C-alpha cells in the first residue's frame, strides 16, 4: 500500500469538467478538427473480421471532396437519377421542417424539432436500406419517412394532433409511428430504441428472415445505459443491425464532451464491444450511403452488427423550446468544416454535369409547393387545440387490447364530466 508520506508530496486531485471550445460571443474556429482526405479511410471487405478494422473507428469515411468530386474506395457510384432523388428528399425534408417549425410559432401546434444540417444522415441512410428493413429512429430522423415517400399530410396530421392523426393525438408532435413505413413508434425517452432494434434484428435472425434493423440515436443519448445494453446484445448475438450515432456535436446545451466525445470517438465504442465501427462524414450523402450499404450487406450476410458514427452538426436549435444563442457561438454552423449536405450533393451533381442552378431553383419551388399543399390539406383536419381532435373516448382505448372495468368506469366519468361542463357553458 502506498504510504501517506509519499502522497503528501503530490498536488491535490482536481475534478475535470469538460468545456466546449466556443461559447456565445466567441469566434468559432474548427481548424483543429482533423479531416482525413477523401480516399484516406480504407474500405474493408464486407466479410472482414471486426478485429481487423479498429482504425475505421478513428478515420472518416468520405466520398465527396471540396470540389464536389466523388472519389475513393467508398464511392457508391450511384446513377444520377438516384443522386437527384436523394437531393430532392433532403430538400423536401428541409422544406417540411421550415414549414412545421413556423406552424408551431403560429400556435398551430405545441412543439417541433428540425433536422437542419443533418438531412443526409436519415435520407441517404434510408436509400441504402431495403424498403422492408425495419427502422428504430430517434426524433430527428423524419428524413426516413420522407425518403420512403411517406405521406406529408399524414406526418402533418400527427404534428397537429388533429382528427386524422393515426396516433389519436396521443403523442407529442414528431413522435411518428408507422408499421407500414417500417418506422418504429418514437419514444420521448432517449435511447430506448437501441436495444429494441437489436431485439428486432435478433428475432429476424432467429426466424431465418432476410430483413435487418437500423437504429439511430444522438451522441448525447449514447451516454444512456440503453445504448450500452444494445451494444452488448448486438455483439453477443451478432445481431443483423446497424446502430447509428448521430454526432451533431450538441445535446440541447451540452456539447459532445459530456457524452465522452473529448476522450475518444463515438465509433470507437464499437471496438470495446467487438463490433465493426465506422466513422463517417455525416454531411456527405454519398459517404452515409456507402457506409450504410456496407453495414447492411454485412448484417444481411451474417457478419453481424455495425456501429456508425455520423459526424455532423446540428445547424439550428434543439427544438422550438430553446435558444442556442445562449449556449454556443452563433457562427459555429457557418464555420462547420464539413459544410451543408444539400449544398454538397448539389455541387456534386453540377460538377458531373447532371444538374444546374436553374433546375435546383425549380426543385426548391416544387418542394415548397408540395409542402404548402400538404399543409393546407392537413389543416382541414384541424390544428392542435381547436376542437378537431379525436373523440374523447379514444383516450381510454388501446391502453389494453380489451378495456378493463376500471377504465370503462373512468371513461363514463369523463363523458359525464364533459356533459356537466357543456351544461355549465350553456347556462352561462
Amino acid at each position, binding site marked *: 500500500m502506498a504510504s501517506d508520506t509519499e502522497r503528501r508530496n503530490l498536488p491535490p486531485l482536481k*475534478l475535470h*469538467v469538460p*468545456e466546449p471550445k466556443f*461559447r456565445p460571443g466567441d469566434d468559432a474556429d474548427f481548424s483543429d478538427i482533423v479531416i482525413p482526405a477523401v480516399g484516406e479511410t480504407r474500405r474493408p471487405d464486407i466479410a472482414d473480421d471486426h478485429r481487423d478494422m479498429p482504425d475505421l473507428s478513428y478515420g472518416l469515411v468520405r466520398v465527396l471532396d471540396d470540389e464536389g468530386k466523388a472519389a475513393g474506395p467508398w464511392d457508391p457510384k450511384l446513377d444520377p437519377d438516384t443522386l437527384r432523388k436523394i437531393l430532392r428528399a433532403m430538400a423536401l425534408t428541409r422544406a417540411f421542417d421550415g414549414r412545421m417549425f413556423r406552424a408551431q410559432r403560429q400556435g398551430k401546434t*405545441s*412543439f417541433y424539432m428540425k433536422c437542419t444540417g443533418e438531412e443526409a444522415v436519415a435520407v441517404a441512410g434510408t436509400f441504402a436500406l431495403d424498403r422492408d428493413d425495419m427502422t428504430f429512429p430517434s426524433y430527428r430522423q423524419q428524413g426516413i419517412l420522407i425518403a420512403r415517400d411517406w405521406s406529408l399530410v399524414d406526418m402533418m396530421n400527427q404534428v397537429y*394532433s*388533429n382528427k386524422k*392523426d393515426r396516433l*389519436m*393525438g*396521443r*403523442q*407529442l*408532435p414528431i*413522435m411518428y409511428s408507422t408499421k407500414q413505413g417500417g418506422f418504429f413508434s418514437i*419514444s*420521448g*425517452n*432517449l*435511447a430506448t430504441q437501441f436495444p429494441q432494434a437489436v431485439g428486432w434484428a435478433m428475432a429476424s435472425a432467429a426466424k431465418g428472415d432476410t430483413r435487418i434493423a437500423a437504429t439511430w440515436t444522438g451522441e*448525447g*443519448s449514447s*451516454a*444512456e*445505459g*440503453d445504448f450500452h445494453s444494445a451494444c452488448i446484445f448486438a455483439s453477443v448475438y451478432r445481431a443483423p443491425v446497424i446502430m447509428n450515432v448521430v454526432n451533431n456535436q450538441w*445535446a*440541447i*446545451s*451540452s456539447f459532445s464532451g*459530456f*457524452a*465522452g466525445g473529448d476522450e475518444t470517438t463515438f465509433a470507437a465504442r464499437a471496438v470495446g464491444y467487438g463490433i465493426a465501427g465506422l466513422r463517417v462524414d455525416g454531411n456527405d450523402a454519398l459517404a452515409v450511403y456507402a457506409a450504410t450499404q456496407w453495414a447492411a450487406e454485412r448484417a444481411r450476410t451474417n457478419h453481424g452488427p455495425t456501429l456508425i458514427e455520423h459526424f455532423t452538426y446540428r445547424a439550428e436549435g434543439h427544438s422550438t*423550446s*430553446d435558444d442556442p444563442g*445562449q*449556449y454556443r457561438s452563433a457562427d459555429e454552423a457557418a464555420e462547420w468544416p464539413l459544410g451543408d449536405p444539400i449544398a454538397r450533393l448539389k455541387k456534386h451533381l453540377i460538377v458531373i454535369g447532371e444538374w444546374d442552378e436553374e433546375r435546383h431553383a425549380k426543385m426548391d419551388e416544387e418542394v415548397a409547393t408540395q409542402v404548402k399543399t400538404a399543409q393546407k390539406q392537413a389543416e382541414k383536419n384541424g390544428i*392542435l*387545440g381547436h376542437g378537431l*381532435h*379525436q373523440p*374523447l373516448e*379514444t*383516450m*381510454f382505448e388501446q*391502453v389494453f387490447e380489451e378495456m378493463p372495468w*376500471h*377504465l370503462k368506469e*373512468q371513461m363514463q366519468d*369523463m363523458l*359525464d*364530466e*364533459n356533459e*356537466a*361542463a357543456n351544461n*355549465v357553458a350553456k347556462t352561462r
Partner: protein
Amino acid sequence: MSKARENTGSTTQRNMIQAINSAMDVCMERDDNVCVFGEDVGYYGGVFRATAGLQEKYGKTRSFDTPINECGIIGVAVGMAAYGMRPVPEIQFADYIYPGLDQLVSEAARLRYRSAGEFTAPITIRTPFGGGIFGGQTHSQSPESIFTHVCGVKTVIPSTPYDAKGLLIAAIEDPDPVVFFEPKRIYNGPFDGHYDTPVLPWSKHPASDVPDGHYVIPLGKANVLREGSAVTMLCYGTMVHVTAAAVEELGIDAEVIDLRTLLPLDMEAIEASVEKTGRCIIVHEATRTSGFGAELSALVQERCFYHLEAPIQRVTGYDTPYPHSLEWAYFPGPVRLRLAIERVMEDVSGNL
C-alpha cells in the same frame, strides 16, 4: 400561503423557479459540500433555468453538466454522498427518472439501513413533474407514488415560491434521500384549472414574496391553506391552486390542506381536519390506481372511520398515459372537482 413565517429580513418577489434557485444558492453559500448537477444544469442553468447563475458563482466543480444518463446521475450522487458531500442532482423531467430508479430504490434509499448507519445518502433529487403544458406523455407524468412506495426516501412537493424555497432548503439539509417534485405547470404562476383564461403571474400572489436568506419549512408539516368545516380537501402541487379556486367558485366551506410532504406525512393535521369536517376529498393529478390518494384514503379510513359521514372521494388523472391533444379532458379540473364535492356533500338520504 404559509401561515407560520419566520422573520428572515429582506424579501424579493420570486416565481417558483427563482425561489428554487435561491434555495440552492443559499445552501451552496453556507455549505461547500452542496453541489448541483444534471443534464444542461451547468452552463445553461437547466432547461427551466432553475440552476441559472450557480456555475458562474460557485464554479464548475459545484455546478456542472452531466452525460445524459439518469442512472449515472443518481449513482454518482450516492457515491459523492458516501464521500461526505451533499449532492442536489436534477432529473430534467420526472418522466426520465426511470433509468435511475435502481440507484435510488435499491441503493440510496437503503444505504443507511444496510450499513447500519455507516453510509448515508443525503441527496436531494429535484425533478419537474405534472402536466398542463401540452408536453405529451413523456413530459407530463406524476410518478410520486412510485417513490412513496419505497422505504427510505422522502417525497416533497411544493405549491408556492415561498414553500418551494423553504422546503428545498429543508430537503437539502435533511440527512436522508429526498425526491423533490417541482410542479412545472406553476413555475411561472399559480394555475386555477381554467386553461382557457390568462395565467396570473406569481407576482400577483402573496407567496411570491420570498425571503432572501435562509429559512426552512420542516418536512412532514402540512399547510392548512383554508380553514373550513364542510369537507377536508387533501392536495399538493399544482392541484392546491385548482382545488382552492374550485372551493371559492362553489362557495363551499371546505378545509383545504396542502400536504407539502407526502412522506413523512402530516397525519395529525389530516386527522384533526377530517374529525372536524367528517368528509374528505383527495385530489391529485397522477393516475388513480395505486396513486398516493389510495394511501391517503386508507389512512383516513383507518383513523377517522367513525367521524366519516360520506365515502372518501378521489379526484385524479385517469389511468391512461397523459394524452397530448386531449390534455384538458384528462386534467382533473374544476368540473371534476365540483362533481366530487357534490357527491361527498350528499347526505345519507341522497339530498344535497
